[in-house]
């Protein structure tokens, strides 16, 4: 297992370097002079030159990239052009909110997805199964931001049950919990749909196995056969997808946060892009990509721990 962990960890390094290169290139590819972009439209020529020298933008590109890496490794992501604050501080203040939204959506989508998938698998080719399929496909096809607005319209404006937007406080308070319900449902619906489809097909596959037939022929109750004998094995492929979904949720949160004015990374990134605050865009992208790669690494390791055959492939 250790060998596998080390191998996987080393494989993540070039990907992280690549992600850093991509984040670095955002500023270089932007139309116009990077020093002028950082200095702002109003800055004088002298200021622009000063910034060019200070940021090393007059050096060759590969030197610039190495310096960028050096700063990132030292935890320095530069300063926001918009607010003047350190990008690291901006991200530290907001990342936990995005993470809590992503995790809440994940918990919700796993619960709903697995339940719906199991119910569809135990009654294949019935009206129920077709209904679940249609709901899942609709869930995948629905824009999360639009679903968020529909929820807001119904539960906040018409029924008045939940707050329309904003984060109501820590999640252990009623106000905090109430404020995360709608964003979590909106963000988690496509994931719930994907997980339900996967659970269904995986469970159907397992239910055809010989040992399940044996369990049934022993006279075990169908509930025991499904929940104790089959579901555990059926959920192995689901684990991988769940891990990948966490990454997708982190990315998807960018849009959902805008709908509900959730104070996370999404709002930070979108504001930064609109105001051409490149250091913030670069820093935020890099942090999200790094977390995503680390989550995927963790998923690989968990998968290998659950299913030892993977380690030897």
């Amino acid at each position, binding site marked *: 297992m250790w060998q596998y962990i080390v191998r996987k960890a080393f494989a993540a390094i*070039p*990907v*992280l370097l*690549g*992600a850093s*290169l*991509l*984040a670095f*290139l*955002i*500023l270089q*590819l*932007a*139309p116009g002079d990077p020093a002028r972009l950082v200095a702002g439209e109003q800055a004088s020529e002298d200021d622009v030159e000063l910034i060019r020298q200070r940021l090393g933008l007059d050096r060759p590109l590969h030197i610039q990239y190495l310096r960028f890496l050096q700063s990132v490794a030292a935890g320095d992501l530069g300063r926001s052009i918009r607010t003047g604050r350190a990008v690291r501080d901006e991200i530290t203040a907001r990342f936990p909110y995005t993470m809590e939204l992503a995790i809440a959506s994940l918990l919700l989508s796993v619960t709903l997805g697995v339940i719906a998938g199991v119910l569809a698998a135990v009654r294949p080719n019935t009206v129920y199964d*077709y209904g679940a*399929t*249609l709901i899942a*496909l*609709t869930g*995948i*096809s*629905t*824009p*999360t*931001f*639009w679903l968020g*607005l*529909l929820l*807001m*319209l119904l539960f906040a*404006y018409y029924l008045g049950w939940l707050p329309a937007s904003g984060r109501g406080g820590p999640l252990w308070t009623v106000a905090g919990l109430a404020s995360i319900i709608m964003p979590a449902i909106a963000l988690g619906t496509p994931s719930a749909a994907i997980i339900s489809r996967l659970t269904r*097909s995986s469970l*159907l*596959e397992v239910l055809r196995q010989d040992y399940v037939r044996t369990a049934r022929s022993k006279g075990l109750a169908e509930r025991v056969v499904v929940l104790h004998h089959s579901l555990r094995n059926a959920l192995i492929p689901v684990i991988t997808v769940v891990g990948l979904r966490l*990454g*997708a*949720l*982190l*990315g*998807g949160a*960018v*849009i959902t946060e*805008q*709908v509900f004015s959730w104070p996370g990374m999404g709002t930070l*990134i*979108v504001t*930064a*892009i*609109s105001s051409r605050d*490149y250091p913030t*865009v670069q820093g935020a*992208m890099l942090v*999200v*990509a790094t977390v*995503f*790669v680390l989550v995927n690494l963790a998923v690989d390791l968990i998968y290998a721990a659950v299913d030892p055959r993977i380690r030897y492939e």
Partner: protein
Amino acid sequence: MTTARATPLDLPVPAVPRRAGTFVRRLFRRRLVIVGAVLLGTFLLVSAAAPLLAPQGYDDQDLLRRLRPPSADFPLGTDSLGRDLLARIVWGARVSLMVGVLAMSLGLTGGSLLGLVSGFYGGRVDRLVMGLMDVLLSFPGILLALAVVAALGPGLYQVMVAVGIQQIPAFARLVRGSVLTVRKTEYAEAARVVGASDTRIMARHIVPNVVSPVIVLASLDIGTAILSSAGLSFLGLGAQPPLPDWGGMINQGRAFLRTAWWVAVFPGLAIMLTVLGFNLFGDGLRDALDPRLRQA
């Protein structure tokens, strides 16, 4: 194999029409595919007939009739500038179709070429290309598209490029996987033995065999591209006003959600039904083109 030429025994082999018929029957065997086809057909028809369905265009403003609810005159109501929402949704179908098809084409062309070269040559080329794809995939969800828009600036064409780049890794991985399988087959080996060039082997023997899964992914990806671009437009980074972009229309309607729900609700419904159409049809296409999957 599928020609209608007479065999040595002079038996008629009307393979093409029969196969096409079987394929269509197989495709439409599932009811949900018919639903998908109807949704898609409506979408394409509306896109094509926009000038007939909404001759007044998409930017016919009249502030005296702003935020009118759905009525006989304006079946889907009007927006904050008094424009007919139905007309804007009809014209918006063209924008969505263009973004979906062009972004998918970029992903398909770029991804397929990279996957083909990567799978065919293997070794260092493979490691380099797949490493690059891993890097692209290290930006979760819509974030890669956002990074590209951050670099290129907001706008409809920038969004198409951004969403297209986001789609490249999926095509590259799919084509590479298929190429790896086909490359080891005896007929590909045989072509090599008789001295066929790399280009010829790829074009004549490998490409035809990877076309089916690519068509399926392409049909599903148009829907994904429409969703992603709508997301970027919703953030204000896509098509700029007054162009009727469904995502942008939802964004404009957000401010009036409490008083004029229709402005945000109907464009979203249009996105959902269109993407659902592509997903249902794509699913059916996959089942019909790949007999192995039909068993599942």
